[in-house]
């Protein structure tokens, strides 16, 4: 698999206290564990099993992902932004790796 490269999109601007739409996409095979290779052997499961988003240390969303979720999982959700600050996004891989991304956001 190629390098995991999270993508984040936030709106350009918002007022303090607004609810904003957050979009995230991460490239990942989401290997379900149900498939076999050409030699007939089961390909071991390797998925992103958990995704979280925090804003200034406050948990916004905490998602458990399951094997039926397709490759390159896309998440769209709303977040309250009471003040300017930083989003922290975290993806947890079955193989123990953790991918993070941060994105600053300014309220007007």
């Amino acid at each position, binding site marked *: 698999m*190629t390098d995991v*490269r999270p*993508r984040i*999109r936030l709106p350009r601007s918002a007022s303090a206290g607004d609810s904003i739409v957050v*979009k995230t*996409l991460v*490239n990942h095979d989401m290997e379900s564990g149900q498939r076999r290779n050409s030699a007939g052997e089961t390909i071991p499961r390797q998925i992103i099993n958990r995704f979280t988003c925090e804003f200034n240390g406050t948990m916004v969303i905490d998602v458990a992902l399951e094997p039926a979720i*397709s*490759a*390159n999982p*896309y998440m769209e959700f709303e977040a309250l932004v009471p003040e300017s600050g930083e989003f922290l996004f975290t993806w947890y891989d079955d193989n123990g790796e953790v991918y993070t991304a941060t994105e600053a956001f300014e309220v007007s």
Partner: protein
Amino acid sequence: MQHLKPARTLALASACVAALWTGAAFADPDLSAELVIDGELHITTRAPSDDITPNLPERYSGWLFRSAETRDLQADDFENPAMLAVEDGADLWETADGSNGQSCMDCHGDAAESMAGVRARMPHVNDAGVLWSMEDYVNNCRTERMGAEAWRWSGDEMTSMTSFISMQSRGMPVAVQIDGPAEPYWEQGRDMYYTRYGQLELSCASCHEESWGLNIRADHLSQGQISGFPTYRLKNAGIVSMHNRFRGCIRDTRAETFAEGSDEFRALELYVASRGMGLAIEGVSVRP
């Protein structure tokens, strides 16, 4: 529907019956939709027909035949999953490979300049008079100039690279050469297009010229335009090349198919591309 043929009214009627059951989930394709990427870049998805396609009233991109949800994915570069391949291709463009230690960028520089319009002219007859697809040009660079190994036709590296190169022509009209040295290839492709293959005895034209707009299983038949390729197919969760799609179509007629990268598919690619002249290259498209 702008061009409702008599044969289509039957399908329309059955679609209406189905709509009663499914809450209007079934609908005829909306051929008047506009493809605007990120609210800025307008992509031409309808073009006038000409001598090449006397049996088509107008040329329609496959994008118009898809559901609103699938169309929306392509209208937003963030949501378009094919952009992941484009980013991989951009990395490969800058990465040195092979015994000469060179990358694509060392010779071709900024792809936004050097590769602009390349996809719109593919496939193209090379200096030796042989018709080549974009994949052939890429692999020729790799083996002859870089001292690297050729990539597989539908391998991840190749589809990422063709996606990246294709993006540099997004919005430009298809403009393949079909006369001069390309003419015999074009004629070979046209003959293939109208040849019935397989146990089902279907030609390309059976579906994509005579029956476009009708249902095939739960999906709409498009005109089989290839201006959107490389395509991210949701069912594959990956990029599909034109030749991969050709192979799938011929397989579905229950025939022995030609191979990806075969002379037959290069010729067919040229002919089918010419049937879409005037449509815009979509860079990387999204299809179900």
